[in-house]
């Protein structure tokens, strides 16, 4: 008989709901004076190394309507491909770059915007280099468990072509859902929750 593993179960996810801003971006929701600033509102300072970019986009529902009550978090390596994290064993990341951002989508337009730097390449589990990418996590009213995805860069065609994660996508027509379009001040990345252009989301 197989021996039981007896692992604890993770607490079940519940939707972030329509008032997620109160908890995670209180200053954005006009609850001022509790925290000096909203966590994740600034990823860079004037000493951060690397190419400055802005990442903008929207989260769209099954009718193409932008979510005006979503919250988006991103996590990425610095310009040299190092994460500013205690679990990063390969070297010290740029101390002037947090790598983590949090942004509520605009209550009118549904736009999110992150001021960051273009990340360097990070190795996959087998040592091959992944293409530069930014990890996204999306929560909102109506989303029962936070959605993980990745943004790749449209001007990194050679690196994208050899990326081991993109290579795992069987339906090649879906690969472009993870690739951001270069625009004047950075990159544009719309996330589709449903429909023909449904973004590839990850089970991690």
């Amino acid at each position, binding site marked *: 008989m197989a021996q039981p593993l007896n692992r604890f179960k993770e607490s079940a996810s519940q939707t972030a709901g329509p008032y997620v801003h109160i908890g995670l971006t209180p200053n954005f929701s006009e609850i001022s004076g509790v925290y000096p600033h909203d966590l994740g509102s600034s990823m860079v300072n004037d000493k951060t190394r690397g190419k400055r970019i802005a990442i903008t986009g929207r989260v769209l529902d099954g009718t193409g309507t932008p979510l005006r009550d979503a919250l988006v978090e991103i996590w990425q390596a610095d310009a040299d491909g190092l994460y500013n994290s205690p679990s990063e064993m390969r070297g010290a990341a740029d101390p002037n770059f947090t790598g983590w951002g949090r942004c509520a989508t605009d209550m009118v337009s549904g736009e999110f915007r992150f001021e960051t730097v273009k990340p360097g390449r990070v190795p996959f589990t087998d040592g091959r280099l992944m293409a530069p990418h930014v990890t996204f996590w999306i929560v909102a009213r109506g*989303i029962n468990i936070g959605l993980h995805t990745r943004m790749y860069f449209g001007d990194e065609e050679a690196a994208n072509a050899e990326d081991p994660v993109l290579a795992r996508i069987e339906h090649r027509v879906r690969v472009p859902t993870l690739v951001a379009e270069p625009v004047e001040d950075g990159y544009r990345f719309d996330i589709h929750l449903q429909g023909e252009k449904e973004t590839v989301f990850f089970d991690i």
Partner: protein
Amino acid sequence: MSEGMLSNRKPETGAFFQRDREWHPQAYTPWYKTSVLRSPQKALLSLDNTLSEITGPVFGHNILGALDNDLIHNFAKPGESAIGPRIIVYGRVLDERGKGVPGALLEFWQANAGGRYRHKKEGYIAPLDPNFGGCGRTITDEDGGYVLRTVQPGPYPWPNGPNDWRPAHIHFSIFGHGFAQRLITQMYFEGDPMIPLCPIVKTINDPRRSPI
């Protein structure tokens, strides 16, 4: 003071236990109407943990203000306090092996004692409490322990079915050591008869598997 300075513990650098997708709610739960157009319909792509998932930012205790985990006072005018039954909520953040998770950032939000949120899109007629903001945060200690002080939130009606009410609850956001672990859940109050009626609770496959 950063978490790194508080602890000699080596960071864990292996993969996390995989999320049990049968235990967590499914994306498409039509009795919770907003999920209908916001639920991905294609299968998720399984992704082994790479450095991008295992790593995550660290939040030092120095970001915390003295009243950050005291919702009774952190928005109140000097000498005043929020209205409602005062409660202390405490517990631990544990991993799948039962080990406490130190240094986890917990953020909370909730309605006031009358069931009203301080939010511009909130239209319920219950009054705002001028001394209650509704947000709080803390970071778990070396054993994974946390505590917050607040008022018990009220239940409130919401536009889903014609007579749906949310049971009293506190929202919890949990930020562990890796970005893969990001989680948001809700804490309910044992014995509340509204829990088994709630469409959002019922997104969990078996409501007896209660959230935290």
